[in-house]
């Protein structure tokens, strides 16, 4: 693997250099204790050590609110939105985040491939960065190492406070072409970083757990604490559900149709015009959320649809922990297995 050393102090210069390719998006401070992906205006403001951004990178491919068309009520006609996209470099992306984009690709491009998503996704370059897991990260448990480099063009691995820069694709190579503040070194993949939060089983054993967990008592325990605010799903990097609404201007002559992120945790999500609600109780909705992550798509694609970023847990006001739920289901399953095993 092509590998260079890069001093921490030279990272802003690298970010400036990446700007030659296009718009650079990177993590920035937000509020008191949070982070968000923003367009880089001043490379010294980019944060290299962060736990997770409030919203996932998804927001830049599938925006929280997106105009689909303008329409005229007078003429009963509409104007399509002509989306033009510029080249973008996403800098300082964690491995689980990259993996979530690859999963989102499948969700938005399989079956009916969506053009707006496709256009935003094309001409994107990704520069990864290693991270120190906090109390909420558990991506290793879903098969994503900190140094997982799939999908990245470049990757910055922090070693002794400075970085090793790995070149992972031709696109990556051309991104750093002409950048002088690096020198060739031998790659040493650090293995010192430990995850504090873990799911007890290997992820390939989880589909079996979920096969028998549908009527588990755990769902009712979760529903007792859950207030249905939707924070878990709205901040989830692999969730992609949306609603479509029409907004009419004050003149009542024209307006626009837009789509907005929606959440299956909201009580109205599965309600039809006649009033029937197909997932009326919180218990049904919390279960649906986890089955979406570990069973339904997983059965077809062989991968958990959770990347272990820890957002749903870190941002849940009620402190509901996704890995804890999974661990409780595992424990319940073990009890059932134990109970039914003949002991000799």
């Amino acid at each position, binding site marked *: 693997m092509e590998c260079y050393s890069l001093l921490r102090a030279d990272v802003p210069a690298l970010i400036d250099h990446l700007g030659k390719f296009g718009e650079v998006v990177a993590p920035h401070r*937000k*509020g*008191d*204790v*949070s982070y*968000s992906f923003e367009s880089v205006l001043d490379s010294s403001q980019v944060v290299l050590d962060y736990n997770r951004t*409030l*919203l996932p990178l998804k*927001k830049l491919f599938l925006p*929280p*609110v997106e105009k689909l068309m303008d329409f005229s*009520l007078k003429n009963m006609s509409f104007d399509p939105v002509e989306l033009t996209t510029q080249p973008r470099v996403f800098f300082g992306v964690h491995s689980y985040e990259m993996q979530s984009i690859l999963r989102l690709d499948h969700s938005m491009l399989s079956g009916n491939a969506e053009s707006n998503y496709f256009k935003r996704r094309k001409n994107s370059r990704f520069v990864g960065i290693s991270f120190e897991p906090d109390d909420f990260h558990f991506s290793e448990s879903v098969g994503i190492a900190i140094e997982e480099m799939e999908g990245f063009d470049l990757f910055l691995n922090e070693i002794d406070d400075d970085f090793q820069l790995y070149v992972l694709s031709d696109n990556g190579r051309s991104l750093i072409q002409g950048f002088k503040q690096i020198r060739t070194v031998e790659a040493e993949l650090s293995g010192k970083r430990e995850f504090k939060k873990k799911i007890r089983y290997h992820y390939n054993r989880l589909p079996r757990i979920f096969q028998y967990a549908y009527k588990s008592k755990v769902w009712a325990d979760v*529903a*007792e*604490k*859950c*207030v*249905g*605010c*939707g*924070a878990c799903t*709205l*901040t989830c990097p692999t969730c992609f559900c949306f609603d479509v609404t029409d*907004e*009419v*201007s*004050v*003149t*009542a002559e024209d307006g626009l149709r837009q789509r*907005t*992120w929606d*959440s299956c945790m*909201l*009580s*109205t999500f599965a309600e039809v015009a006649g009033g029937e609600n197909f997932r009326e109780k*919180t218990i049904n909705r919390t279960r649906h959320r986890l089955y979406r992550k570990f069973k339904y798509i997983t059965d077809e694609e062989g991968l958990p649809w959770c990347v272990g970023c820890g957002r749903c847990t870190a*941002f849940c*006001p*009620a*402190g509901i922990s996704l890995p804890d739920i999974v661990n409780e289901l595992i424990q319940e399953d073990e009890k059932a297995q134990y109970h039914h095993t003949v002991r000799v």
Partner: protein
Amino acid sequence: MKPQVAFFDFTSCEGCQLNKLNLENDLLDILKHVDIVEFREAMDDKADHYDIAFIEGSISSPSCVERIHDIRRRSDILVALGSCAVNGGINAMKNLHPIDEVRETVYGKDKYLFATLPAMAVSSVVKVDYEVRGCPMNQQDFLKLLIALVLGKQAPKYNSPVCVECKLKENECLYNRGMVCLGPVTRGGCDALCPSFGQFCTGCRGILSNPNLDGMLEIMTNHGISLDEAKKRMLLFNSNEVQL
């Protein structure tokens, strides 16, 4: 002919009416759709029939009851405007205390001179067709309803929590800033105005239907306030809606 529209105020601070006058940019567009025939804050005129009557304030005295019945009779569509009208709002806090005690506190020895009732939502007295929630009522919300009525479209209903709009705007959660916020169980539609400016949600748009109130109280007490204080916060705008 354009719909004849009127505005009336009951027990309230009239802030909602002022909020409408602040719609300077859109007022002229609104007047293309409707004729405003009664609006105490802006003009002086009377009519026998209204296509749409907007009601601000809660119903809290026998004379209020009489007046709202009279307005209902003259109106095709009646809209409750703002928290006080929609669910009694802040005024309904008085309902948590014995009415006699409340009268004595406010009027002292003259308490028998002033008839009073528990502060009620307009809908507990007459049929309300639509509502615009919030304290004060949200301007955009009001405009959307007006457009919906002009187009014959059903008014937007808000039964998703404030958290949704907060998340879409990528606001830092106020719980992460050590505050206790009612966003998780409060009806959205306000574009998460308060949390966006660092102010916790006080629940002015009312509590969601089928809320998990015990879960919410647990969240609040887990974030450092007493159960008593948590209940008080939840009741601030929702004394008539929430049983704690």
